[in-house]
């Protein structure tokens, strides 16, 4: 616990970290508290279609008279939840595949590396597109397929780490002493791979947020009446002649969320892994 506190303190010690934390907290507040204080996001009120922002509806209403502030905050919550789930699952699966490949070595390792390379030869958005189009658009399938797109990044990182660890003498010694491989993995590999993977995951979070927004904008993923940031932008965009602010509001929330997550992620990287200089 004190470790988290110390990390936060160090993140706050520089401007970008403070900004990132502030933006992230703002978005989190919006996503967590917003739905509690605003009206039902799915309550249809045909008479109040396209209401302008006012006391009853701070952000106005959509084509079915639903409160846009409520829908935007619920959509933000949905988008963030989805992004976190995708990042967590893909980082865990990627790390495991990477570690196993790195430990086992031989042709399995080369095959895994080749698969990662090949998956990387597809532009991510296009790959996600094709997978979703082929295998369906249900929420679970959607998460699974987007996860597949992001696994190779984590896998590569974990694999590289595992390979360097493999050659370290103390691990070699334990192997010779016939310590159970799972014990070795848990004792040495996981703790050593965790740091960079956490950094990579935090750097990938905004990427996934933007990614999910693009997909839901194009109509993949979330199903009505639920909303996500991408669908809000799209719905607003369709009614752009009635009102521009729903689009702009959702777009701004999305931009602040990705900016905040990126700044925070970079600050976290500087704290956890100060040696690496690369931005992406």
């Amino acid at each position, binding site marked *: 616990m004190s470790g988290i506190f110390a990390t936060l303190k160090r993140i706050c010690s520089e401007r970008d970290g403070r900004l990132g934390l502030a933006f992230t907290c703002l978005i989190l507040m919006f996503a967590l508290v917003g739905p509690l204080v605003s009206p039902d996001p799915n309550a*249809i009120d*045909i008479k109040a*279609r396209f209401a302008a922002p006012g006391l009853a509806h701070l952000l106005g209403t959509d084509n079915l008279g639903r409160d846009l502030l409520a829908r935007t905050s619920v959509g933000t919550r949905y988008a963030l939840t989805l992004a976190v789930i995708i990042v967590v699952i893909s980082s865990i699966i990627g790390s495991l595949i990477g570690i196993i490949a790195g430990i086992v070595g031989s042709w399995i390792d080369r095959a895994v590396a080749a698969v990662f390379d090949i998956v990387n030869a597809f532009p991510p958005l296009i790959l996600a597109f094709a997978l979703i189009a082929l295998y369906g658009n249900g929420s679970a399938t959607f998460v699974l397929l987007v996860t597949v797109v992001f696994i190779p990044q984590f896998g590569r990182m974990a694999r590289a780490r595992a390979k360097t660890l493999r050659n370290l003498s103390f691990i070699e010694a334990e192997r010779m002493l016939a310590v159970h491989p799972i014990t070795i993995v848990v004792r040495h590999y996981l703790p050593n791979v965790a740091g960079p993977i956490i950094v990579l995951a935090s750097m990938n979070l905004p990427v996934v947020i933007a990614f999910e927004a693009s997909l839901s904008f194009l109509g993949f993923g979330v*199903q*009505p009446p639920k909303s996500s940031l991408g669908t809000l932008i799209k719905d607003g*965009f369709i009614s752009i002649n009635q009102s521009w602010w729903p689009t702009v509001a959702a777009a701004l929330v999305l931009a602040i969320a990705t900016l905040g997550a990126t700044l925070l992620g970079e600050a976290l990287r500087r704290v956890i892994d100060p040696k690496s200089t690369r931005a992406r």
Partner: protein
Amino acid sequence: MRMKLDRRTFLAGSSALAILPYVSFARAADRTNPIIALDTDIGNLDPGNRVGTTESNIIRSVCQTLVRFEPGKTSWTNDAAKEIKQISDTEFDFELNRGQMFTGGFGEMTADDVKYSFDRFIDGDKNGKKLTYADDMEALKAVEVTGKYTGKLILKHPSAALWLIGLCDASGAILSKKAVEQLGDKIATTLIGSGPMTLKEWRPKEQFVLAANPDYKGPYKPHFEELTGKIIPEHKTAFLSYQAKELDFTAFDADQLNTAKRLPDTKVIDIPGIDYTWIGINVEKGDLADLKVRQAIRWAIDVDAIIQGAYSGATSRAKTLLAPGLLGNWADAPLYTRDVAKAQALVAETGKTGLTFTFTCLNDATSLAVAQIAQANLAEIGITLTINAMDSGAYWALGADDASKDLELTLIPYTSKFDPSFQTQWFLASQIGLWNWQRWNSPEFDKLHQEGLETLDTAKREEIYINMQKLLDESASCIWITHGRNFFVDAAWLKPMFLPNGKDWQFEFFDKA
């Protein structure tokens, strides 16, 4: 391999910012030839294998038909034909005008060309493959050539539909035999006609240009030298583009009506549609097999709210299958205005609780709005709806392979033609597993349909089709939403022309106001 990345496109790309946006782009004021928007690109220019209305509109303006629709009407006058004589209910003699030349040096039109064009619908294309639109000519048995310019149409049975949806429309386009044989597969992308216009240019996904055909001998001379059609898939974008004066004419969606009315130098054209959108209920599926459940759903769904919420109140609600104005419109059809008490009572009668159904629809904004209103409506009588929105490909795939058997509630938009038989055919028992997603099976309905096809007397047909709609109403398998409404904005200087359904545009009759 054909690469069209020319130097110009590349230069244009790399120096995009060098030239700043202040050079004003072509504005309406400078234009003498109209630029209009179409939501769908040309797919296939072979009349029998066309994909949608874009091609049929082009084909009708580029090719001659024996008889041509008059401007804005479903009545017709002779075009390629000098004279058509009715010998009996199933036999017609025709004589072509002389000197009707196909463009591209393919010579004069003869009766051979007519036979060749129509035989393709009867016998299939050069590989014997059935044409997509072969059924438009279903009633046609054979074409006999009796002279260079004369011939005979022989029908299988008396048919009113053949003229309306076959001979007058794009399927009736007369092609040059020589050209089709010479073009081979290129017939999909090249259109050789003898009509009022020619297809001068087509840049896929971008635009096509129709130009007046100086050699056209028929009665209708086009009023513009050129007409450019831009492919803009979304009505919203096209409407914005119109507002920016990049276009002179476009369709737009109902929810923009108020904006459209405020636009300067603009006429808003508003044509009641004859298409039909309805919520189909699968009468075979689980609890939906219970008539009372279906009736309850019909009472619970607030169609008026749907018209307001999903269609911005800009269209009127439908009461029945056939739209007002069509032969067989059932003017006295019952109107189911929302009655929650009645709906709840019906559900209570069945003794069922916790009803849950899936609502399948397309994933466009209007369909989704309908779905969400229906969802809210049914929640009030204790029925839970799960929305399953699909992209168009997946959605229409439900028509094949009996994929529709698992549907429960489905929002279905269909297009109409001017003969009622075209509409009623989708509700036949033979369509179960294909396009009859209600899976409603009524031998009586089927019998009436066949009668309607073979009857020529209008009053009798009217009665037949009204009776068919009564049967549909009793089944409570369809909740009619709307016949649609077509909205267009149109620069004040331009006078467009369409058939009464608002879908079929007559480019050859577009004129200056």
